[in-house]
């Protein structure tokens, strides 16, 4: 039993319980004699809260049972490997968030090229040819299909970036 799973189930209990408190206000919405806005969410959230509480109890019981055995079992290599995996996922998530935040400001083309470069670096791609070609090639293909052919109004950015984007779509 991973400690993280206990934390995740506790977060689920907290989240669903919090949403349940929000539902109480919704129960007042609706006309007399009708099922109001809050009834259906109440059903879903009561079930979700009960199930997540049951999951938490099961996880706590399993954690308490396995804790004495698990203590001191993890090797330094395993711990380093786990941190390396977390670092790669963390970097990937940061790249995606940065891409979404930057896109409206610097436009689709530049943000996409920047995203591809940083994302493939985060995936430990080190081949210079791939690093040099991929951002340009993928962005060009995406622009041709989605901006030119399907005409999705991709973000152009602001100021000088918008002027740059208008060269292409």
């Amino acid at each position, binding site marked *: 039993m991973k400690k993280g799973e206990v934390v995740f189930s506790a977060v689920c209990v907290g989240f669903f319980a919090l949403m349940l408190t929000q539902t109480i206000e919704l129960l007042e919405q609706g006309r007399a004699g009708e099922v109001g806005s809050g009834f259906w969410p109440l059903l879903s959230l009561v079930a*979700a809260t009960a199930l997540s509480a049951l999951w938490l109890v099961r996880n706590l019981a399993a954690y308490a049972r396995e804790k004495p055995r698990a203590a001191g079992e993890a090797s330094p290599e395993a711990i380093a490997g786990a941190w390396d995996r977390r670092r790669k996922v963390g970097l*990937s998530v940061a790249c995606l968030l940065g891409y979404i935040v930057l896109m409206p400001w610097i436009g689709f083309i530049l943000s996409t090229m920047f995203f591809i470069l940083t*994302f493939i670096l985060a*995936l430990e791609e080190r081949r210079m040819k791939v690093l040099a070609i991929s951002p340009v090639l993928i962005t060009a293909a995406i622009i041709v299909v989605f901006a030119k052919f399907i005409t*999705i109004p991709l973000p152009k950015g602001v100021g000088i970036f918008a002027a740059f984007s208008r060269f292409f779509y």
Partner: protein
Amino acid sequence: MFDLYWNAFGTVLLPQNILAICMGGLWGLLAGALPGISTSMGVVLLLSFTYSLPPITAFCLLCAAYCGGLTGGSITSILFGIPGEPSSVPTTIEGYALAKQGRAAFALWIFLLCSIGGGLFSVLVMMVATPVMANFALRFGPAEIFALVVAGLSVVSGLSGGSQLKGFLSCFFGLFLATVGTDGITGGERFTFDTTILLGGINFVTAMVGLLAVSEILEEAEEPFKEYKSAVAYRGMRDELPRLADYTKHKFLLVRSAVLGTVVGSLPGGGATIASFLAYGDAARSSKEPEKFGKGAVDGLMAAETANNAASGGSMTILLSLGLPGSNTTAMLIAAFMIHGMQPGPMLYASRPDIIYGIFVAMLMSNIFLLGLTVLAIRLFLQLNRLPYSSFSAAIMILCVIGAFGLNNNVDDLYIMFAFSVIGYVMRKYKMPIAPAVLGLVLGDQAELSFRRALLIADGNPIGLVSSPISIILLAGALFSIVYPLFKKPKMLSKSVE
């Protein structure tokens, strides 16, 4: 009637109409395969091309795009683990698992032949039994629709993998997500926290792209560096042709799924998603190897794909006979009728039988042509698999971003997609099944609206939910579907221990 069919074949087989079927089919395959570009969006984008076309050519184009979209959604599901359509989720689970075992081409053949088989079956049913099925579907009120959706949701027990508890928790999470936004009946805001970003609710395509596609890429990012995407091995379509025995072994399941898909597709609010999930759940329950589900069950893939495409004929039946849209895409087709000065429904039989029979034949020819067109499309998509893995992941990630953005051309949707990507990643880490959450999100809105409408009609009396034999049968079936695995599992476990 034979004269009408003869004339319809003569018209549809004209070169311009054949070309329209090929173009529409390829476009539909592309729209269905690209995540975030739905079949309905593909049909909408084609509408503007049909203004200047003769009506029958326009419907050849649109019907082929509809059939292609339903088929194409499964190509990316199997090759990349990304469902192009909500109805492709069961295909993603089983097809992608097969692909990861090095049986991508085998899974593609299974999907292709079952899809085409299901599609052809439903078109034949549509041609023969349209009046009968339309009459049956007319009896469905909100209580029956609610019972139908509950039956659709009951397949969660089959999708939960190892833990029923986590499966149902995931499903209720999805049902809760479906309540976010503006209430469809009172117009009040729910769980929006005074933000505009959540006012329109959580679009299931945005959530699905994050939960299923981006989270998968994030999970794969944990793996050590690899030069190419090695998860899916492909040896070539010819080397992995399935044997006839692969199909005959599951003949009853195939027939059952085709019938189920056609019937569910014909019900207003039914459609391919419920059909594929119901057939998949049915396959999981009736399988001799239930432990294979989630790990590449061929029968699960067959059932889902057959029912998925069989829904098209059912939806079209209701559209043509009653003028009711059975799915989002058939709702878009109503617009096409209006563009050409027609109103689908019983009167259209009397006024324009050439169009009705032309559509029957166009649907039939579209399914036949899709056999070749899909092989072409598969070759195209398999080339993508030979890209360097890192670039491939980046390209898929960008497709996901565009898919989420392109729905409303709104950057806010990207933040929702991002949030669901992280949620999906955490769910994967702790082995919480994602498919039930997607199912809850997709069906939740419909379940709530039909539930509240049924109670409204019954003056708040809950007996109104079980007032007809149809709803009683459907709800009893749903209850059985939920309870049965709970009793079946210990027996299976004890067998394995023995």
